[in-house]
């Protein structure tokens, strides 16, 4: 069955602030910088924007006011309840379905400030399901993924060196990304010497929380014809879910809901995982890429570690991953950096990290219990 939404939305502009531990300005100010950058990059007048999609702590209605957008016909959060890919996916879905013509999609993240510990999930006390986790000291988000990674190690035999090969490569990629927070290369020994935060997760497996905003402009192929940039087509956007509310009480640690985002992704896009020139996989914790690789069909189940150990994720490998350094080394954007980088790579605008001869990619993943995916081509 052909997909009526296929190639009916295009990404035409990108804005991205540096990822910074302390931007030294308010989140609204740096959000507006990224949004106006994306609008100018597209070469479109702000008065044409009639859709806004975002996720995060910022009140997007204030963004509407600041940008002087008089009214929009589409206002929503991410497809799949999760991360940056879902924000772009929902904006593309709205444009493709005719709910708006020009959508602004952006994600703003803030570095922790004194008194803000948003990784702790127990601020409402030990109520509901949290009554069964907080009294055991199990209320920090990374603890809801660490035991999943444990199973990949115990069952699949994933090693420190395999995940280390991923992290070292991300740092190397980030050294060519002026927006990245971590630009100094590291060695395997640096990774292996990194302290445990929630064993088996190490500090260097975790993305650095930063101040950052990424933004893109999405419109129709028709409107894109006289805009500044080469359009990047969205050929499919999906999400998927399973019936459990939390990572820790998930019924099956051996598959993520990514598997259900993948279910219609390839048939809707009319291509398969083997057609991807590179992939933008969610890596808020680096071992999440193991699930992206297997659940989106790039490797057989359980083979993600061997893929990384063989260097297939490098620019020289069979499927380069996250040439911008991923969230792991660019900084925590909930995966919106992946969106910006996918577009820049397909437009040939990725500077010294530009991959040669790339025409199609996918963005996939999410924060353990949410998921989304897109397929893009030039």
């Amino acid at each position: 069955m052909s997909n009526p939404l296929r190639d009916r939305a295009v990404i035409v502009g990108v804005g991205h602030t540096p990822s910074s531990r302390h931007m030294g300005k308010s989140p609204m100010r740096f959000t507006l910088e990224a949004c106006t950058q994306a609008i100018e990059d597209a070469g479109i007048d702000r008065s044409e924007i009639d859709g806004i999609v975002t996720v995060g702590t910022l009140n997007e209605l204030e963004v509407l006011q600041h940008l002087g957008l008089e009214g929009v016909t589409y206002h929503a959060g991410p497809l799949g309840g999760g991360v940056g890919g879902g924000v772009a996916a929902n904006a593309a879905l709205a444009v493709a379905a005719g709910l708006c013509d020009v959508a602004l999609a952006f994600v703003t993240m803030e570095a922790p400030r004194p008194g803000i510990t948003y990784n702790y999930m127990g601020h409402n006390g030990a109520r509901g399901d949290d009554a069964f986790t907080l009294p055991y000291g199990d209320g920090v988000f990374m603890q809801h993924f660490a035991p999943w990674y444990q199973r990949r190690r115990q069952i699949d035999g994933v090693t420190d060196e395999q995940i280390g090969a991923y992290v070292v490569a991300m740092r190397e990629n980030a050294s060519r990304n002026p927006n990245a927070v971590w630009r100094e290369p590291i060695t395997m020994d640096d990774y292996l010497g990194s302290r445990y935060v929630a064993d088996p997760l190490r500090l260097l497996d975790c993305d650095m929380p930063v101040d950052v905003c990424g933004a893109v402009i999405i419109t129709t192929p028709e409107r894109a014809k006289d805009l500044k940039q080469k359009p990047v087509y969205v050929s499919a956007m999906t999400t998927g879910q399973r019936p459990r509310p939390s990572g820790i009480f998930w019924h099956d640690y051996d598959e993520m809901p990514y598997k259900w985002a993948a279910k219609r992704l390839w048939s809707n896009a009319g291509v398969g995982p083997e057609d991807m020139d590179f992939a933008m996989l969610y890596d808020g914790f680096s071992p999440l890429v193991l699930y992206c690789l297997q659940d989106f069909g790039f490797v057989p189940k359980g083979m993600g570690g061997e893929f990384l150990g063989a260097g297939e994720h490098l620019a020289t490998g069979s499927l380069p991953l996250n040439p911008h350094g991923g969230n792991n080394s660019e900084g925590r954007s909930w995966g919106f950096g992946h969106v910006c980088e996918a577009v820049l790579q397909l437009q040939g605008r990725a500077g010294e990290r530009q991959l040669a001869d790339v025409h199609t990619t996918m963005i996939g993943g999410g924060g353990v219990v949410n998921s989304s995916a897109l397929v893009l081509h030039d």
Partner: protein
Amino acid sequence: MAELPLPVRDDLNRAYWDGAQAEKLVILRCPACQAYTHPPRAMCTTCWHEELVPTEVSGRGTLYSWSVMHSKGNPGFEDRLPYAVLIVELAEQKDLRVIGNLVGGQPSDLAIGTPMQVVFEKVNEDITLPQWRIAAADGGVR
């Protein structure tokens, strides 16, 4: 030091915490289809039967996975680092799992499938927490 967050009883979890206070592991079970569910749910998620029955279970299980926390962030645990958090699959049903800490062993003793036995840790007059020991091959606790 921040206080340990203790369970707040409600109509869904009261049987679990009252049971733990009596040193019993009590899980909601559907009288129609016999499925257990945990954490407690308002109805049977298998057959939608609405009156689940608190049922004492064996207190035996196997280790599904675990992690060892090395970082601060959980109130009440600042002085306990590092500590293991276990996900134990109960013997009664596949996918029926509870969270707990390891009592009386080392994380290096753990593996997926390790037999586990519940033990009870009295925190105060109102709350006793089910916790887990590695079970010995003879069914006892070591």
